[in-house]
């Protein structure tokens, strides 16, 4: 018998895996029929998840944690048994700001040198009475945390030296054009839309800030996971197959066309293809540049929900919401990511499963073989741009070393 799951999503390229699982029949192979609910705000995606309109949703990982911890509303436990992808976001400046910080036009900038030039420009603009303003997609987003991590490590104090505000992705290009913001950190295709309109230049990608930074997750209510456990595990297997299809260059154009369709992203297939193929056009009219692993949806068990990723996000929440570290909350935050469900879904398949469920983040400087439960696990470079490492066994120590 076919089981039906309703999936909520926002029209962004990284909603690709459940969509392609349905479109290419990987869901049907697992006895699933997926229906999709598209919305235009994360608040509504979340409401529909909490009040049962959807069974699972494409969600910002920090928002799943914030909801579980009751930030801004009473706590409701959410779980994430699958990471939909790593990175895939660009940092895009207005052409004026890109020029002011000396961002190269023919390649991506260097995170450190752009950052130090930006620190000078930010101080100049603040003393001229108009702070630089950056748009992020949500307060509880990896976009916000990646941007702040980069700024802070470059000597810029977010909220003091610059302003950071929420701007919905479809309006980012408008906001750049009207100078409401000077820069943004946003998922594709929205930076490319700004580039095409000549109102923005891509200067960095989040993969340059944290080479393997966690991005969206498949989130659901904890009680819904228990009730639909069988279907959820089938969905995990179907999405892993969709991921293998997604990263195969032979399928890029076909998949871009599917995602561009009116039911899904309702956007330009050409712009979507740029993200899928890791080939970004930085400045309008320029040839695309190739930046490997701009989006990272499949290799190295990319979808495995490492508890350490959730804990890193928790430290950033403590940092930027000016909270005190709380060991109980930290455990709850880490518990949102559910590697046990991922493992159970893929045990005895051909897929690779890591041996551990948590790892030191940012410590790998090259290819490294790691222990595995099944298959061979080789992880590649995974550094933070400032060389800092995150040890999940010492969260207070990590926080103590960070500026706020």
């Amino acid at each position, binding site marked *: 018998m076919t089981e039906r799951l309703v999936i909520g999503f926002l029209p962004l390229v990284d909603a690709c895996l459940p969509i392609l699982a349905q479109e290419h029949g990987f869901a049907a192979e697992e006895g699933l029929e997926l229906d999709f609910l598209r919305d*235009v705000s*994360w608040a509504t995606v979340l409401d529909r998840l909490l009040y049962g309109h959807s069974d699972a949703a494409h969600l910002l990982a920090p928002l799943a944690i914030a909801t579980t911890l009751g930030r801004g509303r009473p706590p409701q436990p959410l779980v994430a048994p699958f990471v939909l992808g790593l990175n895939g976001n660009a940092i895009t400046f207005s052409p004026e700001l890109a020029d002011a910080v000396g961002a190269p036009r023919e390649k991506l900038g260097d995170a450190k040198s752009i950052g130090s030039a930006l620190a000078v420009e930010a101080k100049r603009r603040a003393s001229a009475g108009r702070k630089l303003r950056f748009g992020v997609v949500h307060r509880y987003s990896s976009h916000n945390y990646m941007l702040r991590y980069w700024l802070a490590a470059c000597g810029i104090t977010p909220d003091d030296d610059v302003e950071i505000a929420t701007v919905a992705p479809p309006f980012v290009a408008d906001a750049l054009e009207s100078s409401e913001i000077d820069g943004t950190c946003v998922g594709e295709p929205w930076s490319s839309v700004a580039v095409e309109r000549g109102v923005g230049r891509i200067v960095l990608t989040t993969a340059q800030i944290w080479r393997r930074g966690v991005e969206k997750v498949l989130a659901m209510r904890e009680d819904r996971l228990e009730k639909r456990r069988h279907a959820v595990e089938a969905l995990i297997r179907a999405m892993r197959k969709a991921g293998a299809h997604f990263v195969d260059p032979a399928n890029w154009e076909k998949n871009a066309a599917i995602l561009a369709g009116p039911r899904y992203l309702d956007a330009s297939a050409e712009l979507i293809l740029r993200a899928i193929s890791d080939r970004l056009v930085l400045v309008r009219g320029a040839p695309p540049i190739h930046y490997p692993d701009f989006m990272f949806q499949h290799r190295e068990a990319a979808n495995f929900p490492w508890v350490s990723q959730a804990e890193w996000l928790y430290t950033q929440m403590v940092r930027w919401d000016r909270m005190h570290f709380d060991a109980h909350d930290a455990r709850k935050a880490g518990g949102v990511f559910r590697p046990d469900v991922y493992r159970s879904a893929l045990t005895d398949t051909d897929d690779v499963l890591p041996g551990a469920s948590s790892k030191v983040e940012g410590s790998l400087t090259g290819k490294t073989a790691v222990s595995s439960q099944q298959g061979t696990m080789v992880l590649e470079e995974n550094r933070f741009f400032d060389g800092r490492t995150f040890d999940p066994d010492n969260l207070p120590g990590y926080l103590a070393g960070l500026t706020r």
Partner: protein
Amino acid sequence: MRIAVIDESASRAMVIREGLAQLDGIEIFLLSDRAGLLAQLAEIAPDVVLIDLGNPSRDVLEEYFAVTRALSRPIAMFVSQSDEESIGASIDAGVSVYVVDGLAASRIRPVLDLAVRRFNAFARLQSDLDEAKSKLAERDTIDKAKRILMQSRKLTEPEAYGELRRKAMQASRRIADIAEALVTAHELMEGD
């Protein structure tokens, strides 16, 4: 009590206002423009904010509420858990509600119930309208099909209609479906 209704559909906002106007001691402000939304809200200083679920400004609005928590009249999301059921009903109806901290549930409840009824009523109006539109389109198709039969088989109008009806009954389908099939087939034959 000051209520702000944020809705990019001006007609729905009107329907909501009309509904809420039944309550005593209420001032209603309609906000349909995305531009300058937060500045307008700050000026209005509402006790209750209603916003439709399809509104792209929701995340910006929630960010604003989170920031204003430090102000003297902070707005929270309407989330007293005892009212789960009525929040569920509002989400089902397509509206989300935020209230100023400390506003008594007994004062919020009637507003919420009315808003939900109005949203549902609007959705019904919309679906009636859609239905009426599709009925109109069906009548067009049936007229076209009749004309095709009248021309190609030299039938009178009642005879042409009778033929469509007979075929529909035979096939246990709707006359509009038979007419649609005939029109499509005719277009193919004519190379239209």
